[in-house]
Each structure stands twice: as C-alpha cells, then as structure tokens.
C-alpha cells in the first residue's frame, strides 16, 4: 500500500523531494558582500569619500513625475523584490486552491500593505461585481434579509486591527524544519485594520431564534467556500468587513465583503461572502472535514479548531535578514512578532541557546487583542558567536508557547494545522541564519 500522499496536496507536509538550496545560499552571500561594500561608504574609518554624498543625485537634478502620474500609487520600482511568493509544493488546483505568502521579513509595524496580504483561495480569486453583490441572511431568524453592498455599508461601522492567519502556517514543519525562510516558515498570515459591521448589530433587528446554534457562511466564489461558526462567536466579535487599511478589500481578500472572525482560522473568515444561514445543527462543509482538521496520534482529529493559538517569531535576524554585515561589538536590535487569536500578548521571552534559558524581551508599539504585537531585545554582537534564537510568547488567556517536544507529544506530527511550538533560528559564526528546530 502506497501511503505517500501527493506532495502537491495542499498543506500536506509529506515533503521528501531532493532540492538544492545552493542558489539561495549563493544569493545571500552576494547580498551580504554588497552590504559590506555599501557599509564601507558609511564606516567610521572611511578611506575615501562616498560618491553618494559627493555627487548630486540624478533624481535631484531633473523633474520628477507630475502628480498626474500614478493616480493610484505604486511602491518604488526598487522594492520589486518585496512580493508575495508561492511554491510548487502548495500549487494545488493549478494555483487556484493554493496560497501565496506574505514577505513578513519586510513587514514593518503591525499592518500588512494590502498588496502583500497573503492570498489563499479554494477556487481562484473571484472578481465580484459590486452592483450584483447580495448578502442573504436567513434560516433561524424571525426576519430574513437580503442586502446590497450600499445597504450593508449603511450599518454602523467598527474598525479593528486583527491578523488573519492560515492555520497551516508552519504546518509543513511538524516533522522538522523545511523552509530556510521566514516568509515561508511563518508568512501564511498578515495583519490589517478592518472596517465593517458586527454581525450582532445586524441580528439585533432580525430576531435570532433561541434554537439557532450555528451559522453557515458561504462565499460566491468558484468553490462556494463555506464554514460553520458557533453562535458564541457570532454574538461576540464576528464582523462582516468591507474595508481593509483604509480602502476597499482587495479581490484576493474577498472584495467586496468577507467574514472576519478575529483570532480564528483564516479559512473561517469566508471571502466573497454571499449567504449567512442559522441552524440548530452544524453543516460539515468540505473545508471543515477533509481539511482544517488536526489529526492526533489517537487517530481522532480535532474539528472546529477555531482560534490560532499564541505564537511568535524572531523577524530580525532571520534567514532573509542575516547578520553577516555586523561588526564585533555592534549593538543590534533583535526584533520580532508575537500574536494570539485567544487574546492579547502579555509578554515575550527570548532564548539565545535554543530554549535552555530565557530572558524577557520588551513589547513595543500598540498591544491589541488578536493582533500582531512587536517585541524587541537589544543585543551586543560578538563576531563569530553562534546563537540559537528562540522566542516564546504569552497571552492574557494564560497560554504560553510550548516547545516542539511538548506540542508533538500531544498532537503527534500529522496534524498539519495549528502548530505553535517555539521556532528557532541558528545564527552561524559568519552571521548567516538557518531555520532549525530543537527536539528530542
């Protein structure tokens, strides 16, 4: 019996293929070399004047673009490498049941620009005509309703900052590290400021019947994507959103309206929303049975695994942001992200030896519920030092990230989803950074 699953099967982690990493290595070596060259220009001991200072810059001696150009602004052409990326491993459905992940190594703050927000669909990105958008809410309500987009937007608005995370973030690495890249190891998530309406606000007039326990949300896309949501969440902070970082949702994010269940699996936040129905029993949609269920060693799988648990990563340094240009004795910030779908980040600990000993890092910026949170630790770099950087976050529900061993002792290595064991970067003697795991 051949039990090997197709390595194309989205989010299966059966990756055995031989592959070469040398191109990437080569690339970062060159990047580092460039970095050192560039540094010479600004070094305290510069032996020659920097042409970037001594000469007029070409853009300073001619007309720039008129304001009539780029009426919707674009990033600088020099930023062309800051893009979502994809891999053949996750090419399911001819890249229509697939994912392109966010370059979180390039992210600043706690907001992802809309063009870089990770993109995941089950039947391709739908392009919905807003004039033909309808949202139907029916089932166990006294008064079913159908809304146009304009009518939906008439409801009182709330604006919240929340990450959305695919629960398969890191899910390829239950049996060991696979991606020598922060973008691919942790980039199945992004964060935005969302604007929309609480579903409980709409329900206030529809008269939810007491026997209503579950809500079906269904998309209008090619896959008719559906998920079942328990009433608890509907009446707490569930939203229907149309605004993302101050503009309309992007098509990849469900334009013109999607569900937002703060902190919960991205897959539950159904895009291209079309229909909401309330019932006394749950539905068993495809993406809550065949996928998005976490198989345990007992042979039983967790279904309705809602919240993305507390998690964190070191962003700088990371495989994409090595320390190859650092000089002995330089002070450098170790910076990272922490997030929890179950509450607010209360603290992050940082280890330099892969989790043997920890020190407390500092949180910084806004610390919001179910949101990315930035953390920081100041370090004095010793040339040639070898480090195992491990971060460990905690939230106000009391959750703390488990070690890889602690998590796999309960979940085994086949669950695909909801991996939140601590992540470790190895900083080599030359300042390169490798993804490793510490396990027994």
């Amino acid at each position, binding site marked *: 019996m051949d039990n090997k699953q197709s390595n194309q099967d989205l989010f299966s982690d059966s990756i055995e293929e031989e592959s070469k990493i040398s191109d990437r290595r080569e690339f970062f070596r060159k990047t580092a070399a460039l970095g050192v060259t560039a540094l010479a220009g600004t070094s305290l001991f510069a032996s020659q004047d920097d042409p970037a200072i001594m000469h007029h810059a070409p853009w300073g001696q001619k007309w720039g673009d008129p304001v009539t150009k780029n009426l919707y602004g674009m990033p600088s052409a020099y930023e062309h490498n800051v893009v979502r990326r994809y891999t053949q491993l996750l090419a399911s459905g001819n890249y229509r049941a697939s994912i392109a992940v966010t370059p979180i190594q390039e992210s600043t703050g706690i907001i992802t620009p809309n063009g870089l927000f990770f993109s995941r669909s089950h039947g391709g990105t739908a392009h919905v005509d807003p004039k033909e958008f309808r949202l139907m809410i029916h089932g166990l309500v006294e008064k079913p309703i159908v809304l146009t987009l304009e009518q939906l937007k008439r409801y009182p608005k709330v604006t919240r900052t929340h990450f959305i995370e695919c629960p398969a973030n890191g899910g390829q690495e239950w049996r060991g590290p696979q991606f020598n890249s922060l973008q691919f190891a942790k980039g199945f998530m992004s964060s935005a400021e969302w604007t929309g309406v609480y579903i409980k606000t709409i329900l206030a007039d529809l008269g939810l019947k007491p026997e209503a326990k579950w809500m079906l949300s269904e998309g209008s896309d090619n896959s008719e994507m559906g998920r079942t949501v328990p009433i608890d969440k509907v009446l707490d902070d569930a939203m229907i959103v149309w605004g993302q970082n101050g503009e309309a949702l992007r098509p990849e994010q469900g334009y013109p309206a999607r569900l937002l269940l703060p902190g919960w699996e991205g897959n539950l936040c159904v895009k291209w929303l079309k229909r909401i129905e309330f019932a006394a029993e749950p539905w068993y949609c495809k993406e809550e049975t065949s996928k998005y269920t976490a198989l345990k060693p007992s042979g039983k799988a967790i279904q309705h695994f809602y919240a993305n648990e507390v998690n964190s990563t070191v962003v700088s340094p990371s495989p*994409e942001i090595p320390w190859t240009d650092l000089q002995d004795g330089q002070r450098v910030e170790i910076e990272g992200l922490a997030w929890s779908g179950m509450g607010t980040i209360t603290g992050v600990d940082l280890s330099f030896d892969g989790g043997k000993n920890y020190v407390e890092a500092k949180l910084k910026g806004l610390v919001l519920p179910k949101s990315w949170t930035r953390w920081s630790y100041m370090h004095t770099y010793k040339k040639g030092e070898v480090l195992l950087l491990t971060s460990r976050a905690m939230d106000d529900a009391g959750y703390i990230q488990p070690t890889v061993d602690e998590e796999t002792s309960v979940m085994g290595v086949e669950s695909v989803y909801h991996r939140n064991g601590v992540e470790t970067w190895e900083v080599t003697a030359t300042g390169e950074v490798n993804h490793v795991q510490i396990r027994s």
Partner: protein
Amino acid sequence: MFKLDRKLIISASLVTAVALSVVGCFQGGDVTPPPSSEFNNHATIDGGVYYPVKDGRTGPYRINEDTLKGGFSHGRTPTANEIAAWDKDIMPDGTGLPEGSGSVEEGAEVYEAQCVSCHGDFGSGGAGYPSLAQGNAVTLQKTLKNQRVKPDADGPVRVFGAYWPYASTLWWYIRDAMPHTKSKSLTDNQVYALSAYILNINEFEIDGEKVDDDYVLDRAKFLKIKMPNVDGFEPIINGPQALDNVRNYYKDAKNFGGLNLKQGAVRCMTNCQKETAVVTRIQNGGISDLNPPLSSVRDLPAEKAVVLDPAQTLYEENCKVCHADSSMGAPVMGDKVAWGKVTAKGIDKVYANGMNGINAMPAKGGANLSDKDFKSVVDYMINSSK
C-alpha cells in the same frame, strides 16, 4: 407594528441571553456584564479571553454602544424563490439533498470525461489535485493512527472514504465546486453518478450491499451511507449538547496541545530543556522551490522580466499543470518527438482536438480562453517544442 417591535425586542433579549449564557454568567434578566477580570479565564468557546462591551469600551477600543441597539431597516425580505435559489447546502441528515439517481458506470463516464485530467485514474490524484481513493476505506481508516516519526514510516491516509465523517459533504462539494474549471455545471443525476463512482473506488458497502460496477445510487441509498470515520472527530459538534461540548473541550489546554499558565504550566526561565534535546536541521536542502526566488536586493527589475509573451503567460496559468511533465500523460513542453506526432496531424486538427478535448484533456484544457487565445497558446507550445 407594535406587535412586531415587541417580537423584535424579545428576540433581541434572547440574543443577549444567548450571548451571556455563552460566557456562563446569565443571571435571568441581568444584562449588565460583570467586570472583565471575571472573564479572563476561558470565558469564550475557543478558550480565549472575552472582552465585554462595557462603559463605551471593548478591550482597548472605544465603542458607541448606541450602535448595538438595532432599529435599522436596511435591505428587504428575500422572496421564497430567492431563498430557495441560494439555500442549497446539504446536511448530514439529508436536508437539502435532492431526489435523483446515477450509476457507478455513468459516474465512470463522467469521471473519464471531466475529472480524470486532474484527479487521475481511479482517483489516484494528479499534479496538484487530491487523491479521491487509495483502496478500501475501512482498511485505510485504520491508518489514521499512523505517525511518520521515522523516515520510512507510512502516514495516515486522509482520502474521502477513510477520513471524511459524512458523505453529504461529498455530494454538496461536487455539485457546487466541481469540476474545478467549470463548477456548478453538473446535473443532480451526474452528481449521484460521480458519488457512486467515488464510493465504488473507495470500495464501499451501503446497507450491506457492495457498491460494485452495476450499483445505482439514489437519495434513499445515499442517506444510508455509513462513513468508517464518522466517530473520528472531537469535540462532538452535533446534538443538543454540542456547544457545551465545544466550550468544555477548549477549556482544557491539554486537549489541543496547548500550555496554559492558569492550568499548571510553568514559565521556565532557566535550565528548561531536556538533556536529549538536539538541533534538528533542514534535510536535503528542504523546500527551495520558492517563486519568485528569495531576494532582498533593492534594484531596478531586470528588463527581460518585464517583457513576457502573452501566450507564455496563458500557458503558465492554464496549461503548465498538465503539460510541464509526463505525469498527466499529456505531450510535454519541449518534447520534440511527442509534439512532432501531434503536429503531424496538421495544425487545424491540433487546434480542433485541443478545443474539443482529447483523451484526458477537457475542452481547451478546462481553461476559460477565447479561440484566438487558445490557438496562440497552442502555437506557443508547438514553437517551444521544436
């Protein structure tokens, strides 16, 4: 009107009642939530923190509580026909499942015509598309305890027959989402036929009868399907106790591999590691097929990357999955011999075969292309294979 308002008020207070019972502190008519500190330990269904709306705030956010009081009259009531047109979900108890029938044999025909190009012979799976069957479902269900903790170990098989808890999901998904390039195009009878075929290749029995090649599936028989893994999921989400089951499940971190400082976990700061812990590295170079290749260089994009043959783009988007390698049995891009045989028939025949579909290839490969665009891709593929 007064009656309606009253009804709405009652309904609204029921909403509040449900909301409060959710957090376990409904005290008969007292709608003022207790202070947030009382909610800070597993008050929500997911085991997380509840941030009540109180005194114009929820968590760190200000909120206008007047906005939550209802009284809106946006939208309209949908007609019965409109609801019927969209309310087509299918539940395990048969709600929504229409009458109809289809045989395994008919299903095999539809499968060969519309499904095999992606899902492979007998549901074996293909380039980027899931496997639908790998043998006897009852036998394979036992593999769900498999853990690939050693390099050569067999993993669990999560195909339809072995893993999914209810067959209703299959019927619903085929009708609404398949074929992937042309969803919602199958008749109900075709969906029954395809369901029968998939049950056949998963070696099912229904009500003691083997789903063999002559089997004809209909609604009554469909509702008798017992999936081998129906009890394979936790927490239990059906029945009157469902929500309490789920709430209780996520109250205990141990159920889902969590660690909670309020449930006995310790925030260890020194000497936290087992002696046996070692550094595990990426094996065999890991996954390095990352596109576009990783780069953090800030320069101007290369000229050549900007100019792309439009036909190449169409090829990448629509044809590559089957024509990039031999796994799908299609002529491989760049294979002079294979394409020589194809073009020997004459270009008009090549166009016609491609547009109408040939062997496992559906019409235009299932792509939504104009004839002109389709021919341009064919030309591109032929020219790239000389």
